[in-house]
């Protein structure tokens, strides 16, 4: 569904992405992991078109995304830090997004809004919200339009365990529907029961892209954290 071919990006002298080629298929839930500064976020941003690669290209459903913008209606993105205009209310942010992405083919998915209890907070201004609540808004927005691809950047950071649980349930449910889900995260243990594939990056390079079963078999570890740890020590 998403294919990156030999994508490279430099910021000044720093090689943020170095010849990265990955192929993400639908129905998968892929964990994008790696240490800080390994290029995870940059890769996500190139897929979203926020960063234009120096070389290489990315296709989405077989189409090159360069100079394209319409492909993004199939993507729900949850940023790592969700900041919104201070004086907008939650209701307005949701309304604005609905205005932007309004389409007949989409049946809005309000499940998360309800599950997070945002309904009662609609009149609250964004500047008055806690970081956790903002994350809930971001998550709700990502799922709102029933996109076939979900890109979640550190989705559970800042969420309380309850909300985190709700989100995980939602991710699993969406995966079952055959969607592609791309998650970057540090907190690996939380991902154990979701993940089908792992992309591991280091210093801008793709170290490996494996099925979780293969990874478990290779390392002999059942838990993802341990499996990764054993790779990093090798």
């Amino acid at each position, binding site marked *: 569904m998403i294919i990156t071919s030999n994508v490279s990006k430099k910021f000044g002298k720093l090689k943020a992405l170095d010849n990265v080629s990955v192929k993400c298929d639908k129905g998968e839930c892929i964990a994008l992991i790696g240490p800080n500064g390994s290029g995870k976020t940059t890769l996500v941003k190139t897929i979203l*078109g926020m960063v234009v690669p120096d070389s290489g290209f990315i296709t989405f459903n077989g189409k090159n995304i360069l100079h394209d913008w319409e492909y993004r209606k199939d993507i729900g993105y949850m940023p790592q830090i969700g900041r919104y205009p201070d004086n907008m209310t939650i209701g307005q942010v949701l309304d604005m997004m609905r205005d932007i992405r309004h389409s007949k083919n989409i049946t809005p998915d309000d499940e998360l809004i309800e599950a997070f209890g945002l309904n009662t907070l609609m009149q609250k201004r964004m500047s008055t919200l806690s970081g956790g609540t903002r994350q809930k808004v971001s998550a709700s927005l990502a799922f709102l339009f029933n996109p076939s691809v979900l890109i979640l950047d550190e989705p559970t950071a800042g969420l309380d365990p309850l909300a985190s649980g709700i989100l995980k349930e939602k991710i699993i449910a969406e995966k079952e529907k055959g969607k592609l889900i791309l998650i970057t995260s540090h907190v690996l243990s939380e991902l154990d029961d979701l993940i089908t594939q792992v992309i591991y990056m280091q210093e801008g390079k793709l170290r490996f892209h494996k099925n979780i079963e293969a990874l478990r078999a290779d390392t002999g570890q059942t838990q993802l954290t341990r499996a990764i740890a054993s790779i990093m020590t090798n």
Partner: protein
Amino acid sequence: MIKIIKYVIADILRNKIVIAYTAFLLLMSLSVFNLEDNSSKGLLSLLNIILLIVPLVSIVFSTIYIYNSSEFIELLVSQPLKRKTIWLSLFSGLAASLSLSFFIGAGIPILLYQASPTGIMMLITGLFLSVIFVSIAILASVTTRDKAKGIGKVILLWLYFSILFDGLVLFLLFQFADYPLEKAMVAVSAFNPIDLSRILILLQMDVSALMGYTGAIFRNFFGTQAGVILAICVLLLWMIAPLWLSLRRFTTKDL
């Protein structure tokens, strides 16, 4: 595009700084018109506010707003929207709300107390300056990644346009006092939207004095319909050029 603009405007109009700015302008213009014994003196006091405060608030506020919206801009970019749409929406939202603030704060008092040609010209140039400095602000903020650096840059730009430029021109005038510089001055004024606005107001306000000396040249140039149209075109260019450059930069920028 309208979809985004209306939410941006709604957001900015509820911003404390913008509310304070509107209230300040309103307070200043009302007190200026009520305290001075004649309202043309009031206009004169208002002139400096329009030429100094309006550009300063427009440029600094817009810059800060753009920097504070960086995550929001990222979110918008991840949506199925053209970057051009996003950027123009932000610009339009800023320009419209700051113009509205100016219109409420200064425009309405002017129309109530001094709806003379001078007053109307002040109102028009004030609106132009609001938009021009939004345009300059977004160019400055899109070309500078660091927020503190960006704000410093726009304050310097403001200082340049409102004070340094004039000082420089005055210095050059003294240096080249022996040459006939009248015509050159007309051209020089095009390089600073604040000066151009001031001259347009001056042509209404000090029309008697401008009948003599160099004034006649300004008058002959800006006083004619063609001159006014040209001046308006130059002001429009000051709006569009930075906007266009910023747009070009933004559409290829890595966020």
